[in-house]
């Protein structure tokens, strides 16, 4: 019957493409209400640069919260936020004065159930 034969190579669909028409940006709009200054982010990377967890934990804070503006990150990507120490250094260096520490807390809070159910031992 047609379908499900394997010729030794797999077929990729959209793959790594971000499809902005259908991407889920619900988390982004929630965060925008909570932290309005966040939209002024220009992705300069100061936060990620000074982040202690960034240097050896798996967390790239800039890329993560920027990604949220485009699409809902995967569980694996979101769980990198678990190594955030909330130390607040990123907030001190942000040239746009965005309360990044609060942003991190809000991301954790708003994805708490989503992450806890799926990653038991975060």
């Amino acid at each position: 019957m047609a379908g499900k034969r394997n010729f030794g190579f797999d077929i990729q669909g959209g793959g790594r493409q971000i499809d902005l028409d259908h991407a889920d940006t619900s988390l982004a709009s929630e965060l925008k209400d909570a932290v309005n200054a966040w939209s002024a982010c220009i992705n300069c990377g100061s936060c990620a640069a000074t982040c202690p967890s960034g240097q050896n934990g798996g967390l790239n804070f800039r890329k993560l919260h920027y990604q949220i503006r485009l699409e809902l990150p995967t569980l694996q990507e979101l769980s990198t936020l678990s190594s955030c120490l909330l130390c607040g250094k990123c907030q001190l260096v942000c040239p746009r004065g965005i309360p990044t520490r609060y942003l991190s807390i809000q991301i954790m809070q708003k994805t708490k159930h989503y992450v806890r159910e799926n990653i038991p031992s975060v």
Partner: protein
Amino acid sequence: MKQYWKDYQKEIADDNYFYVRSCIRQNFFPGAENLFIDILKNKLGKTVFEDAEHTTCTGIGYHTDVVPLETTMTVIARQFALMKEKGYRNMIASCVTSFGLYSEVLDMWKHQPELKEKIAGYLMEATGRTFEEPENMVHASDILYKYRNEIASIAKYKLINKTTGEPLKVVDHIGCHYAKTFPERGVGGSEFPQVLTGLITAWGGQTVDYPERRHCCGFGFRNYLVQPNRGYSISQSKIKLESMKPYEPDLIIANCPGCSMFLDRWQYTLEETEGAVYGTCGNKIPVFTHEELAGLVLGYDPWEIGLQTHQVPVEALLDKIGVEYNPDLKYTDRQGNLIGEPELINQHVC
């Protein structure tokens, strides 16, 4: 299509052609090249010379790093030498990759004359021949584009749906080596090439501009030749077919042997692996080359010009246009004995 693609007009010779064949086109669609010569000679009254000694342009080898550039250039110089010896000035390349390669070589010689001298030296040393650059070097589809109206005037059929009277929706796919490498060497440039759409509109069809129109067909030498990459090749075709599906095209035509083959063959594989079918009501979309389309319109017998070798069965389309054909003779040779039926035909006719 608005007109400013007219800024890209190329000069196409009108007779005395020196035809160089493609090394893979006749493997995939055996009738195509003979059909092209036949149309030129018998339908358009042109003189077409095909030199028995001419060889492959080594394009496939060159693009997969098997053949070094200088060897390719010497082989191409030999082709030009043959042409000069036979007294012809206008060359037609049957394959788009050859056309791209000839253009590239001529372009390199233009910018590095010393390279041309070196190749001339190699040729003399190897074959004792000297060569001259052709006055006019075009692709086979350019010729059909040039005489598309003459063909239309003597055409037996039109690309019109016999029952509904609607022009058939035809998707054109241009080989990348035709217009993308050297836009000014393609009719209409690289963004909105007209060489195939010209044929479609001239012969009564309706062109389709779908979002992934310029996307690669999946041929890409390194894609399909190397087994691990074959997944990329079929994925490109899938993206294209998915993008054209909403337009419900009746036919796809392409001017490069690779594109026509893969857009045709991969439809079978996609159905087998993913159950995806892109034509209307379960049919797949037939894929023709420009010569086959011309032959069809001019009334050649479909089995005569080798349409039965296509992966996607063509009967549904032939019925749509109203082409007479004898279904029983599909797999018989001239003497009428069976030449073997392909193992799997899943054909839905609605």
